[in-house]
């Protein structure tokens, strides 16, 4: 089954910041077409007046004391950085 016409995989890949190959795009569009066809069932449910559930149990904001405490050391914080110099993570130029 093919994806719905409005399922624009190029646009979605761009939104998701995923550089997909043409083969991946074709394959995912077909596979997700099947999944979306199944998901279309949700339209049959009468949800009039039903509140959405984001979490199964009520969740309230949690406030922490505004008190300083030890965090990661610089070495620990940078340990997994793909590129670094002078205690900073280095990245490609962002602003021309």
């Amino acid at each position, binding site marked *: 089954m093919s994806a719905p016409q409005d*399922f624009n995989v190029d646009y979605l890949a761009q*939104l998701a910041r995923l550089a997909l190959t043409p083969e*991946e795009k074709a394959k995912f569009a077909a596979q997700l077409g*099947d999944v979306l066809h199944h998901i279309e*069932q*949700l339209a049959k449910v009468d949800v009039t007046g*039903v509140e959405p559930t984001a979490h*199964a149990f009520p969740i309230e904001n949690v406030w922490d004391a505004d008190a300083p405490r030890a965090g990661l050391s610089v070495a620990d914080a940078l340990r997994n950085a*793909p590129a670094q110099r002078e205690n900073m993570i280095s990245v490609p130029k962002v602003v021309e």
Partner: protein
Amino acid sequence: MAPLHFQTIAELSGRLARRELTAVELIQSLIARTRALEPRLHAFNSFDEADALAQATASDARRAAGQVRGPLDGIPIGLKDVIAVTGQPLTASSKILQNFVSPYDATVTRKLKDAGAVLFGRLNCDEFAMGSSNENSAFGPAGNPWDTTRVPGGSSGGSAAALAAGEVIASLGSDTGGSIRQPAALCGLVGLKPTYGLVSRYGLVAYASSLDQIGPFGRTTEDIALVLRAIAGHDPLDSTSFKAEVPDYRAALAGPAPRRIGIPKEYFGEGLDPEIAAAVEDAVKFYRDRGCEVKEVSLPHTRYCLDAYYVIATAEASSNLARFDGVRYGHRSKAATDAIDLYAKSRAEGFGAEVKRRIILGTYVLSSGYYDAYYLRAQKVRTLIRQDFLQAFTEVDALLTPTSPVPAFKIGEKADPLAMYLLDIYTIGVNLAGLPAASVPCGFTSGGLPIGLQLIGQPFKEADLLALAHTYEQAHEWTRRHPAL
């Protein structure tokens, strides 16, 4: 008595206490077994023998000094490779985290360390816990110890396989749509998905935050009770952690079990393997013969669980996985030319096919113009699914269903994503409703593959749920069978 590697926490902690065994001897035995089995099984992404031996040595020293920390002291427990352990790899079975070393402990890790457990190994799983067969691991599938050409289930496949094979004595997994219960069923183990919020998610690699929950695998309900007691409880580091009582779950096993059991009629329909249906029917008969009140109930929105799940879970995943951008940690593409290109290429090179598929689907259901039709509607359907369960619990104390519609299948057999998603039909509703549920061994197929039954309990009533499972387990021999490896 079973060989050392197939004994339970309860048995081994007794032997350690009686000085019949040391923690070092125990871990050495498991390390030797793991080395011998891993080439065939691949339940581990990695293991650190020296670190495990050092923990065991420390446990023995505590025991010698009379400072034993409880029943888990010296017991080797494996963690799914989505749970952080300081100084150990944390890959989520993904190339994007292939070289990541965790700078801190998850709360469950800290609690197990406090309890004296010997943490052994980083257990294989589906990439970012997305899958039902462990085949989505970037480092290769794990095998099922009962038949290594078959899958152990997923996503916590390695956690189940390592325990069933006798490489660890208990393990932790995470369950977003069935990822503890289904592999427990396929590998002949007890697996528990606790109530959402009972166990802290701090230090768990997030997949779908409103559904994810860490839980234990054990050989018996007693072992599950011991591990759950250690890892449960409120945690200020997880804002969704609930301020719930943590009772002595082991003591509760011997107490009165719930007596009203509901059988949801929607869980016994098309697609259920006849041998599994028969084994679960036998379990129903067992409870009825024991004087339980067994009645049919209805969860009318069951048919929409899969759809609501794949909208909500992928939406949350697309958001959660936005953090993997090649900037602060994780894989960074060497082919990138600018910042946006860096994100897109690092993610393309780092993520596997299933993760990409779910990110694209999640991006779609959240995108402008579709949010109301998909995401908001799925959340409303989630309300109805949850109400179905709560309605059923006005009539019964617990629900009994199959865990998986099929036994362990061959590696490579299910290539179609939708067919794979459909395997989760009996487990997904529990996550959407935030309920506790356990899978308990209830027999074997004619081909010798384990079968599991699922018991679904009421929120935060794990003690009742485990007592109900324990009643069944005590009257059957299933948990005493082990695979020949």
